[in-house]
């Protein structure tokens, strides 16, 4: 049944190809959507939708072109569609701002890899206490109030702690990129 020399676009290769392309780009896509949508649950929902659309439209993707760029285009469209469904939600940005953010994020795609590596290196430098906050808050789907109760802290102070952790990471990334540590 299986041809001796499989055609490069046989359905099975097509699956394999999609799987590997999507695996590579998924973190970047998630980040891309996160910068357009107010909450993680929105991000997850649109990413879910986007992954289905990408799979469905994979035939129209031209091999050899930039998959991430194509995926971002689809993701941007899905995010805008999602936003229209939430027109009365006052926490979403205007379409104009979303378009602007999306455009700039796409322009910055080439730098993404480097920044991500820097971020991950900086992540290793987190202290144990910070690490445990991060794990408990993010690991519980941001059920920050519950985590706060367990940790015996106010939700507000936990927010602030996380905010400082994020800023600390950014600072670390800026320094390491400036030092050429990861160039």
């Amino acid at each position: 049944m299986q041809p001796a020399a499989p055609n490069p676009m046989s359905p099975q290769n097509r699956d394999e190809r999609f799987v590997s392309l999507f695996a590579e780009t998924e973190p970047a896509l998630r980040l891309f959507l996160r910068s357009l949508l107010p909450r993680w649950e929105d991000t997850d929902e649109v990413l879910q939708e986007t992954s289905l659309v990408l799979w469905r439209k994979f035939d129209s993707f031209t091999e050899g072109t930039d998959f991430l760029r194509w995926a971002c285009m689809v993701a941007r469209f899905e995010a805008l569609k999602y936003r229209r469904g939430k027109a009365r939600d006052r926490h979403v940005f205007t379409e104009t701002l979303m378009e602007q953010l999306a455009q700039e994020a796409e322009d910055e795609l080439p730098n993404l890899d480097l920044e991500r590596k820097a971020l991950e290196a900086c992540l290793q430098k987190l202290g144990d206490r910070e690490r445990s906050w991060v794990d408990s808050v993010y690991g519980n789907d941001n059920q920050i109030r519950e985590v706060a109760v367990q940790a015996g802290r106010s939700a507000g102070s936990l927010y602030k702690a996380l905010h400082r952790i994020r800023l600390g990471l950014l600072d670390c990334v800026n320094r390491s990129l400036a030092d050429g540590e990861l160039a």
Partner: protein
Amino acid sequence: MSTPPFQPTPEFLELLAQYSSGTVDEKGTQRLEQLLQDSQDNRRFFRRYLQADTVLRESSCGHIRLASPTITPFPATQQEPWYWKAAAVIASLGCLTSLWLSRASSLDVIPPSSTLAVLTQSVDVQWKAGDRSLQTGSQLGSGTLRFERGLVQLEFVNGAVVVAEGPAELELISPKRAICRQGKVRASVPPQAHGFTITAPDMDVEDLGTEFGLAVGHDGKSEVHVIEGEVKMHPKNARPESLYAGQALRWEAGLTPAALQANGNVFTSRQELLSLASVSSKETVSRWQTESTRVRQLPETVFHYTFEPNEPWSRTLPNTRANSEPALNGAVVGCQWGQGRWPGKHALEFKGLSDRVRLHIPGQYTAITLATWVRIESWDRWLSSLLLTDSFKVGAIHWQLSDKGEMILGVNPGSLENHFSPPVIGPNDLGRWVFLATTYNEATRSVCHYLDGRLVSTTPIKKTGPLIPADAELGNWTTNQTTGTRARALNGKIDEFTFFARALTPEEIQTAYQTGAPL
């Protein structure tokens, strides 16, 4: 240092903190928007900040990084095939986990339906081992039907009606032609279907008027009995010959055909079939009722909807599980009551865009089985809902079908995961009752999809985490402010739906199918 790093204002930072933790209010959102619109530096900083948010989230709670080589969903072997690796990588990212399972053939576009006949009645049929069993309502394209015993009625699209008795082997060639290799058939041919032909060994039997019987034995002996009207016989190597009502002919290869007295009574008529069917239907109903009563008592049954309303005007879908909470009753929105799998059985019709059954499923689950009898009328949109929890929050369950006929279980244990079956629901499955079941089992880390009791796919679960369904609905989906484009309304009927807090075994699912299958 070439340029000093950008310093955001304290106000901007405060809004950013609130925004990313989801606590920002409307005024804050507007102000943040303003600050972002005004400054490219702010926008850049905003993206960096959310990048940190993203990486932190991925680093926590067992979110698995791309490069992680340790994650394999099943015990690793020395030489893993590529698809395990792909599945592991993809699973570790929480995306289309199961795509690799789709086989070449299953990815082909489903050809448009070319129905030649519809199976409209069947009694006590035992299909040949290995063949897919067909039910009443099945649309049949070209192909062969084989059954060991029992009776079926086929209505050809040109109007001819054939009742066949097993053991039989019939091949459907066109709306006006079939081959009978074995079995007893009785064909009723209305004027508009004149010319309907059944090919028997060494002979074509062409109907020119109302009714005839044909028997093809496994020994190669065949008989034709004309019950009413005229039949034209076309022997393989001789001239055609007409037979009239009351006449019959017997032949076998190499011998001269012999004339007989016709005896129509040996061929089951439609009236006889109908009365047999009603007896058989009672047996089916009682078998199903016994099974349903058993399911009601099982501790792992969370809800068991049999779609039998207390009153015809009722807008409540009662959970029939013993000692169930009233909260587990469904609230019917929009749907009308219609006929289910057999006469007297009720079903809910999902037609309108807003037709749905709302329900609340309390608790957390590490293993579930979803099982339903559904009759899909058509694919009106890309995704059709069976059971979808609201939005796609952590713990979500999205059980749905794609217009390619894929069964999909989407779950969100902290990252999204879609478990696809290959396209298994074909055009000929539309308009008939199908039994769909899906199991999710954390212990074995697998999701299995079943169609009519048959396992059609198994895919690995990548990330575990309890399923927390909470608010959900059958046949539709509520996400925040659903718009038309995101609608997932089902076009079809449901007449049974069960949610178990356990992954049923393949044998249990096969049994559930057999005890519930319509005639």
